[in-house]
């Protein structure tokens, strides 16, 4: 209760100050920044940015990738965000197609690896870091059920894994879509669906969130979760009996990326933030959680991350994935989403 009364008091003081100050000064700019960056990292991101630019206050709007994307699209006619910092490149491509982003070449763009920015010039978005698919295996549960450690995607279709796998539903999770679109690129269109048909036989359930399969594997709720490497490394650091596998055929990946929302009233501050988001300092900050970053030569190995990730990333065709997204999702849904009927 202490905290509540404190909040009310500070709120009162705040509004009193605001009333007094309105019209007198406009020193600090506030930016509304939409993001899907993990909640635990947000304070750090803002603090590091403010070390260099103390005058700009960041107001975070954080949610999972799907929800932030939905929010941005819903607000298309009347945008609320100034900047998007840390959202899947696939989502940003969608928004680029809707004409919602303002193309901008940040200072220092040339230092980024080629694939870490939009192909148009000036680019509509710039990349921060890559998040890559991975398989989380709970070693305790695997031993209990005598499951061999998988080494490839194909291994996962082995009937021994039946009922021991979880993966995100691509219709609600960005990670799920990343998996599906990468399999279609690795195995080809027909081979990809054939692979998923077999995989489907082993899947126990599809989750709505991309990090959930790995967290479920961490708790032993399933033995194997198809998720992403960052989540696996975090859970492992917390003491979960996990092994993080990078399948040998290669892994799908997506970028966390940055963009300016068209129509922002704080364009200068927005540009300052996007400039900062591609600096070496920012890249080193991304590197604290992610192994693959925009300026890869700076990257240091990250604890609990397998070190062969950069070689294993497939040559992901984001434009193709964005253009075919609707078709792929509809096909997936008709094949696998009607799995469950009433068990009467």
């Amino acid at each position, binding site marked *: 209760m202490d*905290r*509540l009364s404190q*909040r009310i008091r500070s709120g009162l003081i705040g509004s009193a100050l605001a009333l007094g100050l309105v019209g007198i000064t406009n020193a600090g700019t506030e930016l509304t920044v939409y993001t899907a960056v993990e*909640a*635990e990292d947000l304070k750090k991101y803002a603090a590091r940015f403010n070390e260099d630019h103390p005058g700009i206050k960041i*107001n*975070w*709007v*954080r*949610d*999972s990738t*799907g*929800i932030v*994307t*939905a929010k941005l*699209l*819903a*607000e298309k*006619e*009347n945008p*609320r965000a100034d900047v998007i910092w840390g959202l899947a490149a696939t989502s940003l491509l969608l928004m680029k197609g809707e004409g919602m982003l303002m193309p901008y070449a940040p200072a220092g763009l040339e230092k980024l690896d080629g694939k870490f920015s939009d192909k148009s010039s000036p680019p509509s978005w710039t990349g921060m870091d890559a998040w890559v698919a991975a398989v989380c295996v709970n070693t*305790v549960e695997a031993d209990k059920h005598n499951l061999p450690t998988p080494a490839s995607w194909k291994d996962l279709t082995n009937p021994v894994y039946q009922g021991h796998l979880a993966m995100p*539903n691509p*219709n*609600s*999770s960005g990670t799920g879509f990343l998996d599906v679109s990468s399999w279609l690129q690795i195995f080809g269109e027909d081979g990809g669906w054939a692979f998923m048909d077999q995989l489907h036989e082993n899947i126990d*359930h*599809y*989750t*709505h*969130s991309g*990090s*959930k*399969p*790995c*967290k*479920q594997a*961490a*708790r*032993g*709720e*399933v033995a194997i979760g198809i998720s992403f490497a960052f989540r696996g490394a975090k859970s492992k650091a*917390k*003491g*979960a*009996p996990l092994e993080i596998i990078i399948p040998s055929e290669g892994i799908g990946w997506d970028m966390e990326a940055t963009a300016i929302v068209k129509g922002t009233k704080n364009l200068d501050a927005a540009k300052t933030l996007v400039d900062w988001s591609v600096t070496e300092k920012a890249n080193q900050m991304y590197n604290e959680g992610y192994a693959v970053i925009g300026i890869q030569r700076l990257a240091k190995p990250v604890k609990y991350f397998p070190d062969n990730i950069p070689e294993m990333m497939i040559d992901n065709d984001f434009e193709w994935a964005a253009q075919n997204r609707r078709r792929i*999702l509809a096909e997936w*849904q*008709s094949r696998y*989403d*009607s*799995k*469950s*009927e*009433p*068990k*009467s």
Partner: protein
Amino acid sequence: MRLFVVVIAAYLVVALALPLYAMLSKSMLDPDGLFIGLANYVAYFRTPALVYSIKNSLFVGVLTTLITVTIAFLLAYALTRSRMPAKPAFKTIAMIPILVPSLLPGIALIYLFGRQGLINGMLFGHDIYGPIGIIIAEVFFTLPHALIIITTALSIADARLYEAAISLRASRTRIFFTVTIPGVRYGLISAAFVVFTLAVTDFGAPKVIGGDFNVLATDIYKQVIGQQNFSMGAVVSVVLLIPAGLAFLVDRIVQKKQVALLSTRAVALVPSRHRRFDNLMLGYAIIVSVFIVGMISVCQYAALVKFYPYDLSLGFTNYQFDLMDGGGWDSYFNSIEMATYTAVFGTVLVFCGAYLVEKAQGLGVVRGAFQFLAMLPMAVPGLVLGLAYIFFFNSPTNPLNFLYHTMAILVISTITHFYTVSHLTATTALKQMDAQFESVAASLKQPFYRTFFRVTIPVCTPAILDISIYLFVNAMTTVSAVVFLYSPHTTLASVAVLNMDDAGDIAPAAAMGMMIFYTAAGVKILHYLLSRGIEAKTQAWRSAVPT
């Protein structure tokens, strides 16, 4: 006075009718906003995965209704027709599920029957993720609602009927089926429809424990959040409105048929002592209570265990909400703020609205429309209302657009979502007051507001308190309407439970759920103490001896 009637009716039009209209029209637009008639509906019914959900929702709804009404009837029977001890305690325990979000029983079931569940052997290899889990969670969630209705129905029996039956030498079974059941049939029907509507429109339980078992409520969420397909979300919403609306209509018709059982000459039934029967009922009440208390205890245990199932030591690490999705501790305080506003403004609005409809003269059309709008929220699922609010309030052409993303829109949606029951409570209390008060006041040339503050409010204080507490508790626990409406500055505890579970952080989700439970329970206890004090002060006249 007429002006006030129009103002409050206008509130319901803006907060309910217009958003629903916005949603209906959205369901007939393509993604670019062009009118395409029923094409979205045709597409919907051609997608087998989506149509399955209708079947699934009905399956869950019907089974939950059968199970809940049976359990609730037996418990109500024990509470009204036996002389078992500790009735108030059992009654209190049975009300616990009202104090938690519907996500919480889902979480408890995962800890009990999941792969690493404490007693997962009891499912004999069946999977808790899916219909079994949803139905158990819904039974937990709907039990108090059914119990309240059936207990009320059972407690107004006329003892003379039973005396007559006994003197005709009818057996106990025969009396049960020819006197007891017919006497409560309307209560049973009413309870069945309330449970069915709740189970079909609930979103929390299927989200947490449903696995791949899709139902209409989770489909809306998936269409909107997962695929950003707002038109299809609107279509599913309209489909979900149909069963809820039908159940509501049937219930209304049945209610009209109900005639007063309790004539002035009725004699209250006082159960007599039957040792074997009383013990049987006691045993049954204990089993139901163990189920309810057990589910809640499991959640508290889950919240305290550090890393289930590999590190079972206890601690408060799961309460570090600031490191998780969902908005951290702020969302808890936001919820309290939201619930307080909802209780205060909602009570004023609802009570004044009910008063004006009851007492105002003339304006028949407006009052009729108002009555209809006041009953409508009961039939509108929260998710549907929330989605309708996005369409209506976020449209740039709407002058009320500034409300979007504020605390105010959360409060407005919650008041509207829970309007009907509050309105009925207020109306019932007001109907008990003789219209003579107003005529006497008028003949004494007193303005209406004087009677209102001097007589009406004091007499109706218990009902007013009931309404405010009902609104507060529901505002704390509701997920469905607000899940589409919260903003980063107005995250809520109940939505945090959802989001933490969604991200796989199930233990912190349980911890936040328990925070909601303790808050709601604390407020309930406060309400109990307060209303006892106030009743002694303002309601003494009810038992006063005429002189």
